[in-house]
């Protein structure tokens, strides 16, 4: 048997890699920060924990990174999930109401006791994740079994999800004071705790998609679902799986987000983050039409998105102008991806033909 030839890293291989353009984009943004923002790369050590703008990019990007993991798989099957923001809000509402049920009695207690919670933490987390899992399952059933266009199917939950979240919290913002819960988004073990969550979700997802056949099946379904069907792949189950998993990731992101602001705010948690997650995946080089995906590249994509936001804040762009500036930068990044630009880069980087 012929052994697969060891791949030699050539310049051409590097530029063709899925990770190349996201990393180039991230490097450009960080380079900008390095030149224009003094102290951007400074990392200080506070009681053994690391702090700094660079760390903040990771910490604030953790919700989008977690969302992007689930979103990558959904987009790889040729679908899209617009409801992750709403699912975050639902998960946050479930968690909030289980820790502080005062809203149900139509009254707002300003609890100050950092040790008070109505239900134990494990139940709070399990319930929130179970509900988000059901949200994902709902999307999966609509897309895989009811054959509804993914964009339309998930739009239903995107719109109705916020209503559901409001119903759960009785239309009120729920204060969360319970300290152990706050650790999810604000805790620090040398690095921010939410980063460990990202790492765990990433590692598990990578293992499941690359060490079992699921990753290949997801790609196969995304590239050509008819061929996959004829080859005996149950494309419905694959789709059900990825949408359910995407909902689950949104649930985790919802916990991180609500823990971060110590509030279950059904109206604002996860607002428009579905678009950040989709953009992260696109910057990561996974085609919206489905097919080949790279989880790592999506992670870099999420960091690109966050680095843009962070840099804009750092140079003093006001919050109301942020979206517009972000759009300009995103257009620039996406331009790097167009086949024309890619072809150009490969042309100038290709070794010159000897005459």
């Amino acid at each position, binding site marked *: 048997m012929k052994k*697969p030839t060891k791949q030699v890293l050539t310049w051409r291989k590097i530029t063709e890699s899925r990770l190349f353009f996201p990393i180039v984009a991230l490097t450009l943004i960080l380079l900008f920060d390095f030149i224009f923002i003094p102290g951007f790369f400074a990392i200080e050590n506070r009681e053994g924990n690391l702090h700094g703008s660079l760390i903040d990019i990771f910490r604030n990007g953790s919700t989008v990174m977690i969302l992007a993991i689930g979103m990558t798989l959904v987009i790889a099957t040729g679908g899209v999930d617009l409801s992750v923001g709403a699912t975050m809000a639902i998960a946050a509402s479930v968690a909030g109401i289980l820790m502080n049920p005062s809203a149900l009695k139509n009254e707002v207690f300003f609890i100050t006791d950092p040790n008070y919670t109505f239900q134990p933490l494990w139940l709070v987390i399990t319930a929130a994740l179970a509900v988000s899992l059901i949200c994902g399952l709902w999307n999966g059933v609509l897309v895989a079994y009811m054959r509804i266009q993914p964009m339309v199917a998930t739009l239903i939950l995107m719109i109705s999800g916020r209503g559901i979240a409001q119903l759960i919290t009785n239309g009120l913002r729920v204060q969360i004071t319970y300290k152990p819960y706050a650790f999810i988004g604000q805790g620090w073990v040398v690095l921010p705790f939410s980063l460990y969550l990202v790492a765990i979700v990433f590692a598990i997802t990578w293992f499941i998609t690359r*060490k*079992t*056949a699921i990753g*290949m099946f997801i*790609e196969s379904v995304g*590239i050509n679902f008819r061929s996959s069907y*004829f080859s005996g792949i149950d494309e419905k189950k694959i789709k059900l799986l990825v949408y359910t998993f995407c909902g689950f990731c949104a649930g985790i992101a919802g916990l991180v987000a609500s823990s971060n602001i110590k509030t279950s705010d059904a109206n604002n948690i996860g607002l428009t983050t579905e678009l950040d997650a989709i953009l992260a995946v696109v910057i990561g080089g996974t085609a919206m039409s489905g*097919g080949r995906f790279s989880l790592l590249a999506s992670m870099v994509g999420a960091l690109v998105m966050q680095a843009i936001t962070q840099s804009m804040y750092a140079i003093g762009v006001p919050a109301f102008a942020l979206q517009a500036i972000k759009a300009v930068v995103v257009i620039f990044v996406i331009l790097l991806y167009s086949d024309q630009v890619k072809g150009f880069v490969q042309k100038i980087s290709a070794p010159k033909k000897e005459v």
Partner: protein
Amino acid sequence: MSEADQNILSMEGISKTFPGVQALDDVSLSLKKGEILCLVGENGAGKSTLMKILTGVDKPDSGRIILDGKEIQAKSPQHAQSLGISTVYQEVNLCTNLTVAENILLGREPQKMRRIDWTKMNALASDTLKRLLGVDIDVTKALGSYTVAIQQMVAIARALYIESAKILILDEPTSSLDVNETEQLFKVMRKLKNDGVGIIFITHFIGQIYEISDRITVLRNGKLVGTYETSAITRVGLISKMIGRSLAEFDEMTKIKLESSKHIRSEALLQAKEFGLTGAIQPFNLDLHVGEVVGLAGLLGSGRTETASILFGSDKADTGSISMNGSVVQDYSPLSSIKRGVALCPEDRKAAGIVDDLSVRENIILAIQASKGWFKYLSLPEQYEIAERYIKLLNIATPSADQPVKNLSGGNQQKVILARWLAINPQILILDEPTRGIDVGTKAEIQKLVLSFAEDGKACVFISSELEEVLRTSHRIVVLREREKVAEFSGEVDENTIIHAIAGSEA
């Protein structure tokens, strides 16, 4: 010298390469004024590529095109049309909900006071049809209310409306026409010919070639075989030029087939009883014996593909039953069929066969992995072992097992799909048009492979629209007509008997 003057068009030394395939290799063609030239060749011979280059859809890699003594290079179909090259495609691409007049003059409507002058437009359209084509119809009626033949005429009228049309390309215009409609079209073609228009006529029907054409240009695998005076070449001669098969090769296949028929045993691997699906195929009985290749013959739409898909389970039958190895099959789905050892190589390679962005290796192991499920993932060395084995066995031309399958040529893609199915070690292999659009050499390889597969105590269902191929590879032939099994032949049969069965007339 004088001959060159007569040519209104000559294409010289045209070459064109698409990724992974040489579509045209140094092909030349010439067309005289007032001549009907037939362009023939099997699927994938390069006819449509050559015409696309002429009409500006594709650019040639090399070669030159001379129209009326001047070298041209059409940049787009519109540009080609303005140069005097008009095309009518196989499928009528007009708007059936608009009137005939609107279709002919769309985008060039005569105007009066910045409004469309309807009276003038209708008169103009009506006159164009009558004068150019000799067709007299009501041009104010919707195009959809006329037969396909008339729609075809309207398409030609639209193509010729440009006053300077020197060349008319007709790309398989007769494939959806009946005998009378074809005759009507031919009348128009003869009239245009007398008016001095050069016509390039692409068709698959040998009879029509002899009826209408002056000369024939034959392409095969992207190469020019030759150009012949129609009166100077026999039908048999023409067909052998098109398919380029030698008698020796034919004899070899016959010998292999005879040899393999000794391995047929009487026990049935699969029995279908009154098996059918409403609207797709009438209930039929079919036995597949060990060691046997059963050919399905019939015209397009006769129910060949439908039979294959209900046998495989990608479509669910609603009457009757199948039993395999004596026990009745309960659930029909591709996955359960694969687990039972039934494989289907579907008709449409691009849409239902290959997964184009995945590598050759992944494409080959796809079905095995599907039957193993999500978690029993074949290790990479196992995957490479299987892929390399079939790349060697089937002679798949690929730089490596990691090559995306989309970079391979059509024939090699087909082999990858065959490898996918052979890898699951099936009992029954159903092949729906496995040789469509692939080169002759690969065709012969696949045909031999089918016979040696059956010899190993397995069975094969072989579907092809090329009757000759079905005859050469099948031990038994089932004829389908209008979604019904109408006849079954075993042993030596001649082509004529089958053709009569397909046509439904007595021999």
